[in-house]
């Protein structure tokens, strides 16, 4: 029983940043803006939240800074994709690379620790578990779980959600209805930044105790995979995040275990989220239909 609890807790710990990022990525993509840059947003948020938390000795200021950093990246992405109609994939890739470098450059310049931030001490500087000390359930874990029904509700039950879905399918229809396409998409992108910022802050000041280089380690891409795996819908995406989290949680435990006489390599389990997404996209496990207008810059005929 203890083992089950530990695995469940580990699953949640790993899945939390994935869930937050996936909700953010989902909102962005439903509006038609591809977001390959979730990784970069999380990384910037992780760095800034850890840096500010270390300097101000306050975890909450850290979270605020993390969100601000991710929003700055999101704004850049929005500017490139929406206002300047640039290539959305390239923008995401660029921001990832930028984040990867900037975090180390600034980290080194400010703290001289080769990119790391000073370790954060306990209560105050970190976000501590609320109810189960061994489970690490800081408030952000609950925020992540809450974000799923909230996202679902926003998408399906609000005016903003209806328009968001519309602009991802056919921006022209939205435009001729007199609604501003850019403003809608900017809001989606900024919401994505908020959630990615929370995810990054979580990694640095709740899950761990400070920033280390490239600490997001591809989780932004796994979140993207979860969005696709969940067919751009909140609850299925949550399921995907939990599944990926579970895989990660048991990966270490499975090391050395033999399945049908073959030792399961840990790298295979690490690669499973990506392989599964590819299988899904190949149509071997159902079909994933993206929002129709995704990736296409919208041009007004002026």
């Amino acid at each position, binding site marked *: 029983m203890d083992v089950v609890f530990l695995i469940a807790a580990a699953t949640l710990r790993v899945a939390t940043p994935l869930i937050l990022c996936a909700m953010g990525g989902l909102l962005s993509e439903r509006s038609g803006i*591809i977001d*390959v840059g979730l990784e970069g947003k999380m990384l910037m948020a992780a760095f800034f939240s850890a840096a500010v938390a270390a300097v101000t000795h306050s975890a909450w200021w850290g979270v605020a800074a993390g969100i601000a950093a991710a929003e700055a990246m999101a704004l*850049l*992405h929005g*500017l*490139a*994709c929406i*206002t*300047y*109609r*640039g*290539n*959305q*994939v*390239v*923008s995401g*890739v*660029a*921001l*990832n*690379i*930028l*984040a*990867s*470098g*900037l975090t*180390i*450059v*600034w980290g*080194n*310049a400010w703290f001289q620790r*080769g*990119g790391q931030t000073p370790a954060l001490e306990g209560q105050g500087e970190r976000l501590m578990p609320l109810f189960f000390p061994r489970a690490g359930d800081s408030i952000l874990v609950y925020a992540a779980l809450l974000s799923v029904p909230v996202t679902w509700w926003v998408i399906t039950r609000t005016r903003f959600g209806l328009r968001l879905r519309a602009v991802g399918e056919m921006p022209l229809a939205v435009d001729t209805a007199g609604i501003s396409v850019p403003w809608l998409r900017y809001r989606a992108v900024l919401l994505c930044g908020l959630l990615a910022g929370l995810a990054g802050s979580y990694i640095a000041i709740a899950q761990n105790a400070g920033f280390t280089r490239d600490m997001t380690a*591809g989780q932004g*891409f796994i979140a*993207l*995979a979860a969005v*696709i795996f969940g067919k751009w819908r909140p609850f299925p995406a949550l399921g995907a995040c939990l599944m990926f989290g579970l895989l990660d949680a048991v990966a270490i435990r499975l090391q050395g275990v033999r399945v049908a006489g073959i030792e399961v*390599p840990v*790298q*295979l389990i*690490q*690669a499973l989220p*990506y*392989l599964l*997404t*590819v299988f899904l*996209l*190949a*149509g071997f496990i159902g079909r994933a239909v*993206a929002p129709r207008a995704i990736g296409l810059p919208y*041009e*007004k005929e*002026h």
Partner: protein
Amino acid sequence: MRSRRPLPAWAEIVLLPLVNIALAFITVGIIVRIIGVDPLRALELLVVGAFGSPESIGYTLYYATNFIFTGLAVSVAFHGGLFNIGGEGQAYIGGLGCGLAVLALDRYLPIWLMIPVGIAAAALFGAAWAAVPAWLQAWRGSHIVITTIMFNFVAAALMVYLMVNVLIAPGSMTPQSRNFEPSAFMPAMGGNALNLSLVLALVCCVGVWGFLWHTPWGYALRTMGHNPEAAVYAGTDLRRMTMLGMCLSGALAGMVGVNELLGVHHRIVLDFPAGYGFAGIAVSLMGRNHPFGIVLAALLFGALQQGGAELSFDIPTINREMVVVIQGLVILFSGALVNLPRPWLQALLALRRS
């Protein structure tokens, strides 16, 4: 955004990219200034670091070789309307193929056979790694951007597994294969990392240019890239063309393995793709998807890499990652914000005319 008319040809091909790069550098300058370093001094050190001595030029060219390969890879796919983000993985697996061929045959073949076999193996494996996402796009409609990104991660996981469990040299503490025999050493040019792979890269440039604009398949590929419906009308099999474009692309990316493993490391190591695959996107964009432009852009990136390394030695506050920042900014301005300077340039040109 008012005018959507393109600028005159010379402005599109030369001026706009230069302005984009300039903007990237100005931004870097600002960042450098925030850290407390004089941007102009940093720039000077960068340029000297890249070109100041035969040794540094050698390194610049060695880095540029990799950028040429990945830049060509992205551009070939792009001409077919395909976005190949999988350069990292294809370079990795290409290197694997090259290394495997060498490990199997380096004791038996003379250098003038071993090297070509290694090159062929790199091309084959790189092409194969690109073929799967290509097949999925062509026959199952899976978005190639997503699949190639996923495959990068799968490649990394695969390589770690192989290096740690299968290919590791006996008695070695780090995951790397045994050393290659000299028959697999790509001849060096100058004393350091620069090797004949540069010549291979330039040959590939000519080959890509010839293929795209002087063969019927290149013509069909470009047709598909511009206008898939017209390609169907013209009798092109879109699926086969997708496979062809992506496999060529993957083969080119795989050449990075030749430069790294046969030219420098002389054994299979981990992490040698080191961001070249992603940077290839920038190189291709900056080079306007044309081999000539790609060579220039690759030189720039090579200089940045080498100069940036030297810079981080000279000024401790700036570390190696500054190069990564510059790369990111160049991709951002040349790729994503490419339309940013347009209105200003158009206004400028209009002023000149009046």
